[in-house]
Structures are given as structure tokens and as C-alpha cells.
């Protein structure tokens, strides 16, 4: 069971945060003109923050059981390992 009931105020605060981050996504290339690779990296960083907010508050992961958080982390870890190992192979090819 969720430990704290969400409120409209919480959802709205998160919306504001997400809109701000989205604005940042739009203006970043104009603020910092970077190579495609670095742009992607920075954009993904902003995306990661948005994902964190959505997952923690809109999807209520923050108030879920340790089990569930663990499973989400496990799946993401496995995905990450795929990226890392295939990445190592591609970089060294």
C-alpha cells in the first residue's frame, strides 16, 4: 500500500518542474552549442531528471515497497549492462 496519499498540489509542483526541464531541453542547444554527441549526453541528463520525477512521484515509486524498487533497479541495471558490454565491443571494433 502507498504510504502517503498524493495530493493535487504535489502533482502540480511536479508538473511545474517537468515543464521547466522541458524548457531547458528546448533552449539548451541555443545556450551551449555542442557536438552532436555531447548534446545528446546533456539532453539525456535532463531527460534522466524528468524520468526521475515522473517515476518517483507520478508513478509513486517513492512510496512503493523495497521489493518493487529493487525490481525496477534490477531491470535498469541489466539494460545498462547490455549498453556497456555492446558499447565496449563497438568501441573496440
Amino acid at each position: 500500500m502507498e504510504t502517503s496519499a498524493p495530493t493535487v498540489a504535489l502533482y502540480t509542483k511536479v508538473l511545474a518542474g517537468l515543464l521547466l526541464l522541458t524548457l531547458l531541453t528546448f533552449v539548451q542547444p541555443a545556450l551551449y552549442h555542442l557536438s552532436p554527441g555531447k548534446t545528446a549526453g546533456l539532453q539525456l541528463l535532463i531527460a534522466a531528471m524528468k524520468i526521475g520525477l515522473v517515476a518517483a512521484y507520478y508513478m509513486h515509486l517513492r512510496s512503493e515497497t523495497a521489493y518493487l524498487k529493487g525490481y525496477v533497479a534490477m531491470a535498469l541495471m541489466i539494460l545498462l549492462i547490455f549498453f556497456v558490454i555492446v558499447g565496449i565491443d563497438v568501441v573496440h571494433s
Partner: protein
Amino acid sequence: MPSFYHETNTVFGTHRNPVLQWIFTTDHKRIALLYMGVMFTLFFLAVSAALTMRAELFYPGQQFLEPHTYNQLFTFHGVTMIFLFIVPGIAAALGNFVLPLMIGARDLSFPRLNLLSWWLYVLGVVTALSSLVTGNGFADTGWTFYAPYSIRTDAHVLSTLSAAFILGLSSILTGLNFVVTIHRLRAPGMNFFKMPLFVWGLYSTAWIQVLATPVIGITLLLVILERTLGVGIFDPSKGGDPLLYEHLFWIYSHPAVYLMILPGFGIVSEVLPVFTRRTIFGYRSIAISSASIAGIGYLVWGHHMFTSGISDMARVIFSFLTFLVAIPTGVKIFDWVATLYKGSIVLATPMLWILGSIVNFTVGGLTGVTLGALGADIHLHDTYFVVAHFHYTILGGVIFMFIGGLHYWYPKITGKLYNEVVGRIAFGLVFVGFNALWFPMFIAGFLGNPRRYFDYLPTFAPYHQVAGIGGLLVAAGLLTVLFNFYRGLKNGKEAGPNPWRATTLEWHIPSPPPLENFSKIPYVDFEPYEYEKGEPVVQFDENFRRVR
């Protein structure tokens, strides 16, 4: 008391038509039998394909098959055995039946999803088999569908790919169902480390089904899109990289083999205590090793690609990780041997199959480690050595464990006993035949006999001939098992609830079980394999309250 054969729950309301009562059932026990029926029909079809190949290969040179047909046969054999039989495998057939019984539940968490899984499975089967009679004939790409050939070949690859995708969905839903069931429906008092080891095996398997299958799903979908729309993801002429196909394919297909063996290992851990009349040695280490095998199994896929052109760095990493994954399996085998030591060994038919599987799997596993060594693999890749390795692990391991499990739970499922003498004879035929069939292939492969070729150099003929005889013995043995099971159904003795005097929960309810499994759910505050002086410790009264 009526059994689940007499009454059932169905989706879409009640039916009086017995056929509808089977194909629309939501009862996990009936669904398990539905899976078994289809799966074993396909198994025998795939065995026939194998025997046909062995017949062609009995002498060098062409006997009666065209080379193209041979390619289709080994593709058919692989696709059927892997996607249609062994991936649903023990989990769908025995797991569905036994899991709720073992944890003290009345069904899985999502019974209707379970039925959907079966329906998707049937759809996948029909789609796969349809390509036998449509288009340019069955796929000839091998069950691995490597790009770019799979993108270019004329053969009817689309239906096989679609079938594999649908079957993947079925597998994912079953895995999801098992994960939630094991989390939510364990009887009160049964914490994770009081679960039977078969349940641990099914749990680890379920996570592999859930996390690995989507990767191959999307990969096969991409090949379908390549063939139909010309997308270009794996097509070198459009900048695509066939090696990335192999990476994604094996990212699923390697964990898939752990998905095949882990329930089998679970069966071994169930059968050994019963037929040594003592508790299993090292319960916790076996449980944790199941989870470890699942976990580390995600990391080793590249050992299928050592000769495909991956970087040296990747090769070293994968070889190291491959050696690592052998360790938890070694732990299990050690625990099993320790269970046998000073146990009162009963060589009943299930036990014979299980002991045979441990012998076979040890050979298969060790040759896997050999293949994991980079230098050796360069020589052995794409030879019969590899084929022998995986037949020792999958046929000698998983199928032996599967058949052992079928014998073990046969009384629970049918309420009858099969003939023990016939059972032992069948085992003997299959065990001898299997080793005659596949051991020569290690040697032939080592000496250079390539795989997936419809012909071979005359020097290899003796190996193929011994293998051919072995294949016939295996077929004879398998038919004997079938005959034994059939006769047991017709004329077998009544089994009663606990013919083996075993300890896990399923043996405390009638054989065959009633629709709702347990009249009362017991409270479980005991270990799964408690024996004292060779007899089960825990006993229940008729209200499922513990009396001892």
C-alpha cells in the same frame, strides 16, 4: 470428492460442452495439461525431423534429401524444439500444474492471463507450422535467423518470425504470472526460504522470461520490418550491422537456456530428497545459486559470437564471464551429490532419470566451459562439438529432468501409478541411446566435422552411424515412456495422495487434486524437506492443521 477433471472454472461463463470446458478453462491444472498435449505432439514431430536427418546422414553423400530440404529440416527441428517446446517447457507444463500446489494456493494470481498465455502459444504454433504449407516452404535460416540471410532468403521466414514473436508474448505473460503468484500467494508462514526449490527454479526462470524475451521480440520484429518495409537496421547495404542482430538475438537466447534448465534443476532438487529419504543438502545455497545463474546468465551471450567478428576486448570479457557462470551450477551439483551421500537411495524411475540427467548435464556443462575458452572455441565453433554440447545439456539435462518430473508427478496428476519395470527399461533405452547418439559427435566435431551441413567427409561415417543407432534407441525409449504412461492411465493402480511419502504440500492433497486444490490453506512454519529416520515429519489433519 470430485477432481479437477470433473469440474472447472471457465472464462466467458459456464459451458456444458466438455471441449469448451477444457479450452476456456482458467484452472491452472487443466491449462498445464493443455500445454503438455500440444507440446509433446510437437516434440515428437521435431524428433521425427531429427530421425529423418539422422537417416540422411547415416551414409556420406546424398541419400534421399535435397540440401535445401535438409536446411529446412534442421531449422524446423530447432525452431520447434526451442520455441515451441523447451521455452514453454517445464514451466508451462509442470510449473503451471505444481506451483500453486507447492505454495499452498488455489490458482495462479491471474488465471485468465494464464489461459491467454496458452491461447497465444497455440496461435504461435499454428503460425509456425503454417509456413510448412505456405509461401516458399519452411525457413532455411537455422533457428537463429541470422541477418543478412534472414532478410534476403526466399523461404517463408515471416511466419516463423511472427510465430516466435507471439510465443515470446506467451512466455512473458507466464513469467509475469509466476512472479506475482510467488510473491502474493504463498501460504501464510511460508517465507522465501521455506519455498520448495522447484519454486525457486520457477521464480528465477520467470524473471528471465520477463526481462530477456522482450529483447528478442523487438529484434525479430525488426527483421520482419526489414523484410516487409526495407527499414535497414541490420542490412549491411543500408548501413545496418548484422553483428548487432547477433548481439540482440543472443542477449535473449543465452538467458533462454538458463530459462530451460533452471526448472529442471528445481525438479532434481525435489526428487533427490524423496528418493534419498532425507533433506536436501545446502538448501540456501541451491536457492541462491538459482538466482545467481539467472543473474550472471544475462552477461555471457557473446560466447556465441567468438568467431563472428566481435572485438578482442569483448571476447575476453565474455570468456571470463562464461567461466563465472559455471560456478553456481557447480555448487548445485556438489549439493546434490552431498544429498546422495549417506542417503537411503531408492532407484525408482524418477530417480533414475534425475541421476542420468546429472551425469549428462555434467558432461554438457563441462564441454560448455571448454567452448568458453577462446582458443578452443575458434577450433570448435560451428562443429558437431557444439551440437553435442547443447544436446547433452538440453536433451541429456533438461529433457531427462522433464521426463523425471513427469514420472514423479504422474501419480498426482493422474491419480494412477505407471509400471515401474517398464519405466526403468525405458530409461535404460534412452540413457544408452542418448549417449550413443551424442558422445561420438564430440569426437567428430573435435576432428572437424562441421554442423548444419547436409553431408560430411567419409572419415566421419562411423560416428554418424553409431549416432544413428543411438537415435533409434532414444526413439524406442521415448515411445516406451509414452506407452507406459498410457497404460498407467488405463490400468494403473490407484496412487493415493502420497505414493512416494514425500513432504512438499502437493502430496498432502488428493490425487488428482480437486478444483480448488486445498480444502483449507495450511499454515506453513516448516522447511520443505523435513525427514526424520527416512519418514516425513509434518502431518496434517483433515482441516489442514498441523498435527506433527
